[in-house]
């Protein structure tokens, strides 16, 4: 929590310079995957490897959420048998993974992106359409 508040202090000194949007990658169908192409606006801010690592981890997490395995089948059948009332008590596998993703993004923001004047927005807040990266002006670094 202390880290995020210092993040806030940083932000108060900085202004939004631009926003970059990482679009979805549909080459594997309708699965939620994002393009790993490194946007040119981030060239000065972060290295390619780090960025690609983040996006690849996110892609893996989303793939895990949508995976068709025995666990999802059991969950589906159980839900059908209980007339889907079981979801009143427990959360779906997808929701569990989404929480994991939110945690991961928070952690990445704190450790990697905030020190470089960047901010990742959780794609779920954008309807899983884009990963929004806000670029802040480097006022704090010049001070």
């Amino acid at each position, binding site marked *: 929590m202390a880290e995020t508040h210092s993040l806030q202090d940083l932000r108060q000194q900085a202004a939004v310079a631009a926003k970059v949007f990482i*679009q979805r990658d549909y080459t*594997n169908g309708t699965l939620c995957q994002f393009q790993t192409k490194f946007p040119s606006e981030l060239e000065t801010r972060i290295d390619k490897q780090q960025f690609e690592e983040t996006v690849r981890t996110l892609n893996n997490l989303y793939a895990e959420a949508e995976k068709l395995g025995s666990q999802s089948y059991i969950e*589906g059948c159980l839900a059908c048998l209980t007339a889907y009332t079981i979801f009143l008590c427990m959360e779906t596998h997808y929701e569990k993974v989404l929480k994991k993703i939110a945690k991961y993004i928070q952690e990445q923001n704190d450790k990697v992106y905030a020190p470089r004047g960047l901010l990742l927005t959780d794609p779920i807040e954008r309807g899983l359409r884009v990963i929004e990266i806000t670029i802040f002006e480097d006022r704090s670094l010049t001070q």
Partner: protein
Amino acid sequence: MHLGESTRECEYSQISTRSSTPMETPYKKKTQKKRKWETFPGRNKFYCDGRIMMAKQTGVFYLTLVLILVTCGLFFTFDCWFLAEQLTPIIPVIGGVLFLFVIGTLLRTSFSDPGVLPRATPDEAADLERQIDVANGSTGYRPPPRTKEVVINGQTVKLKYCFTCKIFRPPRASHCSLCDNCVERFDHHCPWVGNCVGKRNYRFFYMFILSLSFLTVFIFAFVITHIILNSQRIGFLSALKDSPASVLEVVVCFFSVWSIVGLSGFHTYLISSNQTTNEDIKGSWSSKRSKDNYNPYSYGNIFTNCCAALCGPLPPSLIDRRGFIQSDAPQLAPPTNGIPMYGSTQSQQSHMCDQDQCIQSTKFVLQVATTPLLQQQSSEPVILTPENGASIPGRTSLALGGPCTSLPMGQPTPPASTPSLSCHEATDLLPVHGHPHNHSHPLQEQVAHHHFLTPEEVPSPPGMLHCGSPLGHSHTMQGSFYNPASQDSLHEDSVRGLVKLSSV
């Protein structure tokens, strides 16, 4: 005396506090926690504080409910006693279980979010516009239709740009003109369930029609059995007179059986080949189109396709109906390449310090910090309530709200006002039902010829007026006007206030 002075002081202090905040307190109370469903841009109806989501026209859904309830009610009241006595009491039990399953799945289909895609934020829309302009080279009066090609598992699929939602639709998504939303894995809009059928509620829909076909066949069979057994004792006509309800049940079931069993069979075929009704009607993956045409989404075998559709993971709703509206960051773009800036969409203040909300509050702080920047820039347009998706920054034309009568051509939208009561996509190929096809494509062709505008067609020749759709969705067009405001932020705020008032 002291008391008197103190009371006077108290009075003064009381008066001063009241007079200093006459506007603020009511303002705060009015704009206190609004939930996102209250400002949802689509044409849906919400109940139970956002928990239930349905289409606008729900009359036929109530008809469905009444038909099922009345038929089953009559069955349990009049026929079950006889059957339980003469045959076995298990019959009403099975009937009861089927009935509960039918009602449960019907309500689940009707009340859940079918997989609506939220509309793009102004930043995203601007970014996409920029990319498209760069790609097109800004040639000519109007840019060509916006499509993107993607290769999925070896098949080339065209992604179309939705002018209402300002996104490139994911594959298999389609825009429902009745609900005015893009829906993922759009199957069709079903008036019988009063909702779209899409990715999130397709399995419930399938379970509903499957269990309903079993129920219909069950009731039909046992009512006939009842009449036959009864007529063996007292004669056919007397048996009919004895239980007139049975006659009604037989009639209802007879007509339902053909349609519902047929529909179940059709959807079983769709599930096993992993197609949507939309794709089947258009023949997207039909081998008749070309020899190499195949369905890139199919898993290869029927079993996996069925499991994926019915038992796969249930994706969460993307629209967060019950979340609270928070202030958005100012959507600033660097003005270096002449792109104008535009104000925030919602000026709702959030004072939550939850970890998730920390980012939101930092964005608000940025807004406060950067308003001086806005005033320094050259005159920028102010986009107000862009949720209705009718305006785009950087355009110099005026967009006026309200219904408009200057759209003479036949478009997909007018038939939406007369929803067909048929759910049979296989047999009834009228485009009236649900408009699963992409509506923007024919519109684009027409606009190219006539230079007319629709709410979906945002880029316009300068000087032309944007109009609301011919159905006159005045409520959706309220507030979506475009006002090239001066640099005065006060003026901006007052205009925003006016917009809020007008949209209430």
